[in-house]
């Protein structure tokens, strides 16, 4: 029975922005994140679809995750579960993903985590970064990169970014 507490840094304050040299990682509070899946879900949504590199508006939108799945951001609340009429499965996952905006000189940092470029578009925003599963896309300003990371891996992702930034 080994006490490993000292091996792991205490989790940082989830609201504090993190300076990464020429870039900055700012935690984002979203009102709601909703997983919606269904055979026609990409055609059914009224929200703007966001892919990679994408251009997400500041209010509500739908990030594409799969051919049959969206992550709705700040969409109106809908009941969880299967809806036979719309043929959609819905789950509230607001607390499942920690969200950050990466601003400044972002691409060199992202390039340490994955072979990635805005020049190669992708229909999905889901990918691996530093070996961690994330959703990644750009906001409308084309300069801000938004990341959703599974909450339990948020510390690891931030630590990876800090390590990457330490190399300049």
């Amino acid at each position, binding site marked *: 029975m080994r*006490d490993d507490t000292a091996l792991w840094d205490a*989790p940082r304050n989830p609201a504090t922005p993190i300076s990464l040299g020429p870039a900055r990682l700012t935690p984002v509070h979203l009102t709601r994140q909703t997983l919606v899946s269904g055979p026609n879900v990409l055609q059914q949504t009224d929200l703007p679809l966001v892919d990679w590199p994408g251009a997400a508006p500041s209010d509500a939108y739908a990030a594409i995750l799969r051919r049959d799945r969206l992550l709705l951001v700040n969409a109106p609340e809908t009941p969880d579960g299967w809806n036979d009429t719309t043929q959609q499965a819905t789950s509230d996952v607001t607390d499942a993903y920690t969200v950050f905006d990466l601003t400044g000189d972002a691409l060199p940092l992202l390039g*340490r985590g994955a072979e990635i470029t805005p020049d190669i578009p992708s229909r999905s925003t889901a990918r691996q970064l530093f070996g961690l599963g994330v959703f990644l896309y750009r906001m409308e300003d084309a300069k801000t990169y938004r990341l959703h990371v599974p*909450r*339990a*891996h948020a*510390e*690891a992702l931030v630590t990876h970014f800090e390590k990457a930034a330490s190399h300049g």
Partner: protein
Amino acid sequence: MTLRLPTGGLIDRSKPLTFTFDGKPHTGYAGDTIASALLASGTRILGRSFKYHRPRGLWGAWVDEPNAIMNVTLDGHEFPNCLATTTYLQGGMAARAVNTWPSARFDMKAGLDLFHRWFAAGFYYKTFMWPDWHLFEPLIRRMAGLGAVSPDHLDTYTSDQTHDRCDTLVIGGGPAGLAAAEAAAQSGQDTLLIDDHAQLGGTAHQLPQIDATPTADWIAQRQSAIEAAGGRILTHTTAFGIYDHGLVGLAQNGPFGTAPRLIRLRAARIILATGAIDRPLTFANNDRPGIMAVAAAAEYLARYATLPGRQIALLANTPQADTLAAQLTQAGAQVTHVDPAQSPLSARGGKRLKALQAGDRTHPADTILASGGLTPLVHLWRHAGGSLAWCDRRNAFLPGTPPDNMTATGAANGSFETDEALEHARATGQNTPAKRPDPKHHITPHWPAPGSKGRQWIDFQHDVTLKDVELAARENYTSVEHLKRYTTLGMASDQGKTSNMPGLAAMAAIQGRPIPEVGTTTFRPPFVPVPIEMYHGAHTKQLWNPLKRLALEPQHRAAGAALGEYGGWLRPGWYGKGDPVQQAQTEALMARQTAAIFDASPLGKIEVMGPEAEAFVNFIYYNTIATLKPGKIRYGFMLTEGGAVFDDGVIARLDANRFVISCSSSHVDSVRTHLEAWRQDGNDPDRIFIHDTTQHWATLTVTGPRARAILDTLDLDTDDFPHMSLRETSWQDTPLRLARVSFTGDTSFELSIRASKAPALWSALLDAAKPLDAGPIGVEALSILRAEKGFLMIGKDTDGETMPHDLGFTAPRQKKSTPFVGDRSLHTDKANAPDRKQLVGLTVPAGAPPLPTGAHVVTDDEIPRSLGYVTSSYLSPTLGRPIALALLENGTDRMGDTITAWHLGETRQATVTAPCALDPEGARLDA
């Protein structure tokens, strides 16, 4: 005696740097390598050979140097096996030649050379067998090895790793590379030019002018033009390998003592302009200090303003040698040109060279510059799958059929003349097909002559001589790979850059075959040795397989939790600073006497939804799930298709088309993948949807006789809520999923709430628990509690062969009528065998300590046979005695038997029982 010229070169004479070599102080300049500074100072012996400890000087000026290998210490940190020719000098360096004592100049092991006749290739395969290799091995191990590695580790020695891409990558910044990169960039391609030196230019520095422009200006113009056209340039950067799908590995070196950056580069097109190296001539005593490659001498002169010596015998017939002769003469050296066709050739002198003997003529010399012709550096070409073609006129292997998207140009392509190389390079840069120019000069072959006299070196570092190649041929090690492996030719740290061609040629001559028929060995990455740290990067410490972190970790820390790794999560093992074993006992006892709060958040919450969700989970689970009513929970197993238990846990039905799978904490990712694979393969993916919502939730378990009292303080509706039920309710206006399941055997409630609300729920539960003398428990206590009940933990109390009927769950195997994953595998001979290992409990005689986990249960035969093993073992604080679980062959038929437990040769007695040691009737569940 200094060999440094008063002017010229790329060194900065305003910045003298002091360093030591083998303890002796030396001075060089910024821009020097260790090798060039030592050469300039007149130091002739920079190392010793691996086997015979022969004195060795510089052969090369860059990556092809086989001899000058040093351990270099800077700022108190020692780095092993640094190549003196590629290590740029820094003030304060202390360099020591490896594998020598006390110094390269006076080496105690030099006497080994006297016994060389018994150290021929492969001698060790023929002796040291009697009485045993072990008798001889320790001495040989001590003799072998290059540098010693120091046990320290520098925290700042950490590599950066990144990805990059470009349209056109040009490897090599010599004349051809510069011209190609300029043409590529100017034709609009996103171009990256890399060169492994500090400065661009390559062999251009050896030329007074190019295109009628002074060389320095010409290089600067190319550089500006490339950058002006948007191209990028990286110096100090080596392409060390080309991998599948055209990925290029680049190592970008920083100052000495820092780890190189790894750049994984994707290029649409690669232009190879890596140049060529000189190959040695094979003659008697050709390994003597003072015998240097023509190309190396040209580099030392051009870059470092250093003569290779004063009295020079030039043994070469290449046009490059003529140019060099003129330059050396002009710089004040005395140069004698000797035709390598004369024979026999031999070097005379020992540590200091005296003369070159050519036929019956003696040419006094302190230095011999030799070249048997140029060999293009085609390593990367071969990594990428390009073929090689033998060229009789150049006497060299040239790039043949190209790999995808790669073109060679310049000397790497066999164009050893700058003018013709530039033309080809420009066309290549523009992506215009260009024919390889015909060579102006025909190189007369000067290959090793089998049967000739004297010790003639093929591989300098590894001390492989022509006689060794002849011996290998005599013993039929004639395949090129056998030759290499038997003699170790080409396997030194220079990877055969100097030795492979003479070795091949020697074998060809011995066998009377043409060189291309003998073939080449495989060109294996890395092109030059690269530090292991380069591959390491950020994958260290916490970032080596980072754990998942709980939403409530700050609360656990505040409560004094000892955190540890459990199933991929960082979780409280116990609370408080006391003895951990005692702490777990205390917590478990508290849970049995009053109540306990446990953070069960990592338990999976995978939702399966859709019109075919029911049929799907029924197929995925061993147990029948179709009959589960909404609001109800069932315990069950998922199997592999091979029938082994893959996961256990509960599944709840929320409504007709919605299930929640609560798989074990460590299996969430693998269960999700398992479900997705079956969903899309064999089922209708438009009618089944799987959402992993695990991390949206935090789950707190309240368990124990006073659990209900704690729950009552939350004011939740728990009426008519029997064991194995689930209810969606709310707390403080937040949805809360309340489940009655128990992993302890006591009344238990699982409360799941969105993670951001978990701290409030945690506080409320702890506040309610405190007056009852209840409180939080960690994973260690829970492990005891579940073991008391005989509840298994997957992977601990099961192994990869365990099937559900080994765990007492037999009904679906016999009765379930619909297909399920793994069904047919439950009826193989093995599955039906009478000797299967089944889960049982074990009790020990009163007063005996717990059985060791990992002890085996054995037969009482003279040579005991294993019947199984103890999988879990604890002292039960509730029962006041040890308890244990075991997988035991035919265990269910052995209930009540006394068995023998065996641990490291010691035996103990125990009695077989049912797994459940506490409350088998289940009275505590609703207490």
